């Protein structure tokens, strides 16, 4: 992927850039808003990481300018604030995702991957498959190796979320947002508890593990 990063703090900027490069992406890193805006307007990027508070032209202005000129590039907004209104404000200004500092690299990487690979809306499957597991979205029936698995509605939603994003890491917060519509960080291991129940039903009775844990990042169903 070709990724534009606009971040004024050199440590954070290098951290993001080197991490993304190590994953095989091409990264342009700029440390001020003016150059960043120029680059965003002229270049062609798959996805953009934009810090909200960069000098000269601030992140929100860059975002509004991009959206006003109909640049379709997906933007992940980084913010140091994390105030009550900030997320809504960022999304309203045209950001596609939002991350509060400090963040783990795995979180950023997983979210960028999600942004760049949004499934085309026309292609709506009725059956999701992974290994020998099948999920029928119409009958809401789940089978593995021909064996029917009974899932609670939320377990179904959790599995569906992972299946639809097969091969991509889903972090705790991404699951909270996507499955439960929760936009804060609970102090209790709610995701882990639900995941362990889902695994008990989906993985435990079988030999091959379907849902893998990605250390320090989240969960994934392999492609």
């Amino acid at each position, binding site marked *: 992927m070709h990724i534009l990063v606009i971040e004024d703090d050199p*440590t954070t900027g290098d951290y993001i850039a080197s991490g993304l490069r190590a994953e095989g992406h091409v990264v342009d890193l700029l440390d001020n808003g003016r150059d960043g805006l120029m680059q965003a307007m002229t270049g062609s990027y798959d996805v953009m990481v934009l810090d909200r508070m960069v000098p000269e032209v601030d992140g929100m202005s860059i975002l509004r300018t991009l959206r006003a000129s109909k640049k379709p590039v997906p933007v992940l907004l980084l913010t*140091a604030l994390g105030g009550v209104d900030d997320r809504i404000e960022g999304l309203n200004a045209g950001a596609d995702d939002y991350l509060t500092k*400090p963040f783990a690299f795995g979180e950023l990487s997983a979210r960028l991957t999600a942004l760049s690979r949004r499934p085309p809306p026309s292609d709506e499957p009725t059956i999701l498959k992974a290994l020998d597991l099948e999920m029928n979205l119409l009958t809401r029936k789940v089978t593995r190796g021909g064996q029917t698995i009974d899932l609670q509605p939320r377990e179904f939603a959790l599995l569906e979320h992972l299946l639809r994003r097969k091969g991509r890491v889903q972090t705790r917060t991404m699951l909270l947002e996507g499955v439960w519509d929760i936009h804060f960080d609970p102090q209790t291991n709610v995701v882990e508890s639900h995941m362990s129940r889902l695994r008990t039903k989906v993985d435990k009775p079988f030999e091959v593990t379907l849902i893998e844990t990605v250390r320090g990042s989240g969960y994934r169903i392999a492609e």
Partner: protein
Amino acid sequence: MKTLRSTPLRLSVLLIAVFTLFMSVGLAMAFWVMRDALAADITLRAEQVIEDLRAIPEPEERLERAHEIISAADPRAMLLRLTIGDQTVGSVSDLPEGIIDADATALPEPIADSYLVRRADLAPGALLVAVGRDSVAELSETFVAILGFALLPALMLTSAIGIVVVRRTSARVEAIRGTLHTLAGGTLTARVGSPHPDTDLGDISRDLDRMAEAQEAATGALRQIGADIAHDLKTPIQRLAVRLEALGDTDLPEDARDQLDQARTETAQIIDTFQSLLQIAQLEGGQGRDTFGPVDLGALVADMAEIYDASAEDAGIHLTHALNGPLPVTGDRNLLSRLIANLIENALRHAAGTDIHLAVIGRTLIVRDGGAGIPANQRDVVLRRLARLEASRSTPGSGLGLAMVKAIADLHGAPLALGDASPGLEVRIAFPD
């Protein structure tokens, strides 16, 4: 009913009542004093005539003097009859018909009302003097006239002025009240505006506007400081997190990795406390209200109970909930889910091992646990930021959970009460209609 509580109206009514009372009492007293004076005067005149005639010893002269007096007097002001032997002087023929009988032994009723009658035995001679009391009757008429021409218009005028004053001050007071209400709601741009600068209410309005101005500036400054601190502190924390993560990618001995994990946990705790403090300050400043919309709190309670159900069960706790249909409220879904989550987590943390029950009764959200509860005299304390009771120092948590709950409840105009679930803590949040 609100009109009746208006101070200017009550003052006006009181003023008019006092004014009427004093004026009536004054008039009545003046009337009594003047009537007594008039009555004394009338008696005196009668006595004077008697003494005058008594002073003349000669019957002839006495009769002549009586004739003089009676000729000079207006019959309505004075009647007189003096009989000495067979001679009578008196304006009997001038007397109004029926006022006095021929021998004057008995006096008919009207005389007693209209005249003050005195009889005197002058030896020789019998005297009858009647002094007219018309002036007393006139006095009454005069006072009725004063009452009609002075008091009533004065009353009407005062009432009219009262109404105008009440209207104007009520509008002013209403404007001040409205502004205060808006300010209290967190909209710091509200101002009274001061079209009548020279009245005391105008002064108050101006002072209120100045205060709001200062408050807005202070809040703005605070917000800026908050943003600056957030930026200046979070950048190094971000770097710290970056370095810790980079360290995690290297080969480390077991004990170093333990230290690293602890450092990560501490960093996460710093961030969480920091974030919560910032957000509580923002909520108290009224931020978040812009995104208010219709939310079904009942469904949200069910959702949150479902989310925490698994982790509660892992901890051996029954998390139950009881709803009676949807509870539509106006609010921010994200903040309200945070409120419920914080209450559940507070119970999980401080009432470890006891069951948790969520309920919606009417428009009130109730969360109950079976833990140690909070002593009545410390319930206010735990709602303050960073407040933690001595007993809970050893358990993890930032001490901001309930303060955040309170801030979110306040933002939604929902009073929060901590009570005793005997045993345990009961939190009640009553959402407005």
